[in-house]
């Protein structure tokens, strides 16, 4: 099965990458942008999707500072 | 089983399709060169063979426009352990140790994608160092961009600096110095040159010549993809339609983690004496590494493309042969040691694969499994590329006819030297490089005795006593004004930096960045520059142990300034006496030392005023400079003086201001301006490599007078730079100087 894990900084944690994007966009003429968070995407084929949660907890994300979201792409 | 010479299937390559002369021309060969290839082969080359020839006969690999000139450079000396021709040169530093070093360009890839271009430039030069069995101990970089007022230049600068930092920091090799200039002719052609140094046991260094018929060729490191082969896409018509060019990325992506493992793996293989020879895969990948190994060993090499681990499926043999995928090495191993070699590779989690063998055929033969797909005589590949004579001609009127005058940023009528000083200190070529070098780890490996802005040259202590000092420099604008004298000045400037640290030159490496040498005025720049380089190296007893040439740096806007970047390595006996640039003690006397003969044409002030380049520079007194260097060096080594800083861009007053800023101490100067009709000429005129600002006890400075001119200028102290010229006086506080000097910080938000 193909899965996608989206990982982003937890709400409330300073995200300098997101802030850099917020600062940069108006300079390029894109206004009205706020609340930007930059995270990362992990795509993986797994045999047992029930293990995804544990994978995130243990390795793919750091639950102390990151939220994650598991998406199933195809089966 | 691999076909052998006696195997009839190996007689001629099975692939009979020949791309022909048109494809050859598209790949950069001339029709005459193609005809010569056909003559040497005895038939038309097929696509694999044409791909290999086109790369090995390119300027990058064959040096066909520069080889004859480079042959005039001095390359031998008592301290030279390894000279030009190997992956890097090396000099003896005593105690059984050698220092390997080389500078190389990565200009074009950096102009396309500055982060990866610069990163892989660092990766490539590091592989050159550990390919000869030396552990990399330092990186320096030399960068050229258009003016920072240009958004593109700022983008390139930021990307290149981050890329250099990313690679060097991640692999644990300190970046100990470098230089950057901003000039409009680099706007379309930025330069990214990286220099690396390594340390090796002198008797354990390894060469790249393949040897031992029947020995195994092992490829190790990263897997092979289509990196960097976009230029050869004319050959791809059989494999790909025109609608999917994305399959051939031209940008090589660097992986410092892979390189870190490759480095440790290579050094462990050498430590265990498991290798016959070792070679890195740089430009032109397997093609150039295997051909060079075979050529140096005067043997043949068979390679099987089907054994090469690939990153993506469906790669044709010619693509595998010319891929520039990074972080790969090639070695020759005795058959009995192959298992041991692969075990070490496994320990470091590096792919290791036997992909071929050393033969007595004198041919480079490329197989795809059992099928022979390319068969080329090695001498034809490596030695038979025609070497061209340049047709140099100095244009009537010289440099001003080649280059536009720089845009003026300072009014010519400014008469207050304090205002001029602040403008110079804040100008892009002089402002503090701190915002750049703070992005680099300068101290990993625990050898760094002098970091950037502590001394004119970086100083590294050596494990068995003594230390080395390194400097890299190359003022292209002055070389443009006068290729012969400007290049001599570059060498002197580096040697002066070493003298300030207390070091004596051991050897030199260079990267010659020029425009199109087939044009007479560029040929003139190149010819004159190499003449000046040779003369300066001979005068300073600094042999050239290796280097690199980057030509065709031109765009619609014209050529770059001719930029011979010089990297100089020297030694000093005791790191405890390494010199410092900054003033050290209140009350010390300040003196101008050396045959300083300042002139404004070609200077930074002249640039700020928007003046055109002069047609020629003033005479360069090599012997006088050498005597001054020796006097300063000996005084530094003896601990007789407190600081020494060479007078470079911006002239005397800028050098004093820098010594004040680096030491955090002001100065009071009484300058004898009566002798000069133009005060700006004494205060801001330039005479690279021939003048020093030295501070210390008055008696110690006086003692230098026996060997070189000394003029006492004033005294260290206070929190301002105060200057009394007799006619006028002015003062600038350290805080004002520091603010001006920090002008580059906004480039790195």
């Amino acid at each position, binding site marked *: 099965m193909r899965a996608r894990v989206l990982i982003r*900084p937890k709400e409330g*944690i*300073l995200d*300098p*990458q997101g802030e*850099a994007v917020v600062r940069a966009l108006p300079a390029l003429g894109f206004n009205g942008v706020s609340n930007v968070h930059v995270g990362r995407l992990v795509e993986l084929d797994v045999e047992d999707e029930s293990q995804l949660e544990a994978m995130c907890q243990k*390795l*793919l994300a*750091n639950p*102390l*500072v990151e939220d994650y979201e598991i998406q199933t792409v195809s089966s | 089983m691999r076909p052998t010479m006696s195997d009839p299937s190996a007689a001629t390559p099975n692939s009979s399709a020949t791309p022909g002369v048109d494809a050859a021309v598209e790949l950069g060969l001339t029709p005459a060169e193609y005809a010569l290839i056909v003559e040497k082969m005895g038939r038309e080359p097929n696509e694999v063979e044409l791909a290999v020839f086109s790369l090995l006969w390119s300027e990058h690999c064959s040096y066909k426009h520069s080889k004859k000139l480079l042959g005039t450079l001095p390359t031998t000396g008592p301290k030279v352990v390894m000279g030009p021709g190997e992956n890097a040169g090396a000099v003896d530093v005593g105690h059984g140790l050698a220092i390997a070093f080389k500078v190389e360009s990565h200009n074009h890839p950096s102009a396309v994608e500055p982060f990866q271009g610069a990163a892989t430039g660092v990766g490539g030069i590091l592989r050159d160092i550990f390919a000869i069995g030396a552990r990399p101990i330092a990186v320096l970089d030399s960068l050229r961009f258009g003016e920072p007022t240009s958004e593109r230049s700022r983008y390139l600068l930021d990307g290149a600096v*981050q890329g250099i*930092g*990313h690679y060097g*920091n*991640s*692999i*644990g090799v300190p970046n100990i110095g470098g230089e950057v200039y901003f000039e409009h002719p680099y706007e379309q052609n930025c330069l990214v040159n990286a220099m690396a140094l390594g340390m090796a046991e002198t008797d354990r260094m390894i060469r790249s010549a393949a040897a031992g018929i029947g020995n195994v060729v092992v490829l190790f490191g990263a897997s092979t993809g289509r990196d960097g082969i976009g230029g050869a896409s004319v050959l791809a018509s059989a494999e790909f339609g025109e609608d999917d060019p994305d399959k051939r990325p031209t940008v090589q992506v660097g*992986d*410092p*983690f*892979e390189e*870190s*493992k490759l480095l*440790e793996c290579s050094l462990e293989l050498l430590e265990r004496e498991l290798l016959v020879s070792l070679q890195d895969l740089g430009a032109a990948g397997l093609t150039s590494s295997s051909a060079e190994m075979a050529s140096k060993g005067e043997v043949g090499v068979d390679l099987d493309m089907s054994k090469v681990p690939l990153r993506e499926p469906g790669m044709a043999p010619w693509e595998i042969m010319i891929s520039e995928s990074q972080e790969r090495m090639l070695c020759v191993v005795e058959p009995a040691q192959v298992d041991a070699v692969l075990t070490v590779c496994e320990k*470091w*989690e590096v792919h290791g694969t036997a992909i071929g063998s050393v033969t007595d055929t004198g041919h480079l033969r490329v197989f795809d499994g059992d099928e022979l797909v390319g068969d080329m005589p090695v001498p034809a590949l490596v030695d038979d590329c025609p070497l061209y004579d340049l047709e140099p001609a100095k244009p009537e009127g010289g440099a001003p006819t080649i280059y536009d005058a720089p845009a003026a940023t300072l009014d010519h009528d400014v008469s207050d030297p304090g205002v001029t000083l602040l403008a110079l200190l804040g100008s892009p070529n002089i402002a503090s490089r701190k915002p750049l*070098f*703070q*992005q*680099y*780890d*300068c*101290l*990993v*490996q*625990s*050898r*760094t*005795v002098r*970091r950037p802005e502590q001394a004119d040259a970086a100083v590294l*202590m050596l494990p068995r006593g003594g230390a080395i000092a390194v400097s890299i420099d190359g003022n292209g604008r002055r070389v443009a004004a006068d290729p012969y004298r400007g290049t001599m000045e570059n060498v002197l400037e580096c040697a002066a930096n070493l003298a300030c640290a207390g070091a004596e030159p051991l050897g030199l490496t260079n990267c010659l960045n020029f425009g199109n040498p087939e044009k007479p005025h560029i040929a003139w720049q190149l010819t004159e520059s190499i003449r000046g380089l040779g003369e300066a190296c001979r005068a300073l007893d600094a042999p050239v142990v290796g280097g690199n040439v980057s030509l065709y740096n031109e765009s619609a806007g014209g050529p770059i300034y001719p930029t011979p970047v010089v990297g100089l390595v020297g030694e000093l006996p005791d*790191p*405890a006496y390494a010199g410092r640039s900054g003033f050290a003690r209140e009350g010390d006397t300040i003196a101008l030392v050396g045959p300083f003969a300042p002139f404004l044409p070609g200077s930074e002030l002249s640039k700020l005023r928007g003046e055109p380049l002069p047609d020629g520079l003033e005479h360069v007194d090599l012997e006088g400079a050498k005597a001054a260097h020796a006097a300063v060096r000996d005084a530094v080594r003896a601990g007789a003086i407190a600081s020494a800083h060479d007078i470079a861009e911006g002239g005397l007053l800028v050098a004093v201001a820098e010594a004040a800023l680096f030491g955090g101490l002001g100065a009071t100067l009484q300058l004898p301006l009566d002798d000069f009709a133009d005060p700006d000429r004494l205060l801001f005129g330039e005479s690279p490599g021939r003048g020093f600002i030295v501070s210390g006890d008055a008696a110690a400075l006086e003692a230098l007078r026996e060997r070189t001119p000394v003029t006492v200028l004033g005294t260290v102290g206070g929190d301002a730079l105060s200057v009394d010229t007799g006619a006028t006086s002015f003062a600038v506080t350290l805080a004002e100087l520091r603010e001006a000097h920090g002008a580059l910080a906004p480039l*790195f938000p």
Partner: protein
Amino acid sequence: MKFGVLQFPGSCDERDAVDACARVGEAELLWHRDPDLKGVDAVVVPGGFSYGDYLRAGAIARFSPAMESVIAFADAGGPVLGICNGFQVLCEAGLLPGALLRNVSLRFHCEQIGVEVVNADTAWTRAASPGERLSIPTKHGEGRFYAPNLDELEANGQVVFRYAPGENPNGSERDVAGVCNLQRNVVGLMPHPEHAVDTLTGSTDGLKLFASAVAAIATH
């Protein structure tokens, strides 16, 4: 007294750490795949970019066989020091509280800075005095310490080092430069004490950490 310095693929400062330890005791490298800690008395997890810092700094190194042994060693009270990337590894391993995030500047930053000792009662700071200011270099791109329970850590005396006022290189909350576990045998910090052990290269203040471990073992 023998120090063991862990070596991962991608470690950078492991030889520097060995040399620093060797100034006050014996020291050897411990290979990441080998669970045998060779009977060392203290462990240093050095700086660098273990496994390329891919995924997250320290995230993969934390699962190496040697680290499993280090966790057991630490749980038994053995002194463990994590420097820079090693600090990140110890946080990932749960031996130390918190996490290290990208510098606010988003840039790698290298500079000699002042580091204040907040807690001089740990296995790695007992040779220093509270409030003492050490000159130590810092060099990292991901060193901004974050812990959701910083008040609690402060109350427990788990903040061991702070950047001197105005010298915080990464935007770390309350200038935290290093922390310890509740038992105070495990310490992690972003600055590099192993690069402050020789006057020729800038400072000897970092030796205090290694000397502290020797003292801790002697009294243990």
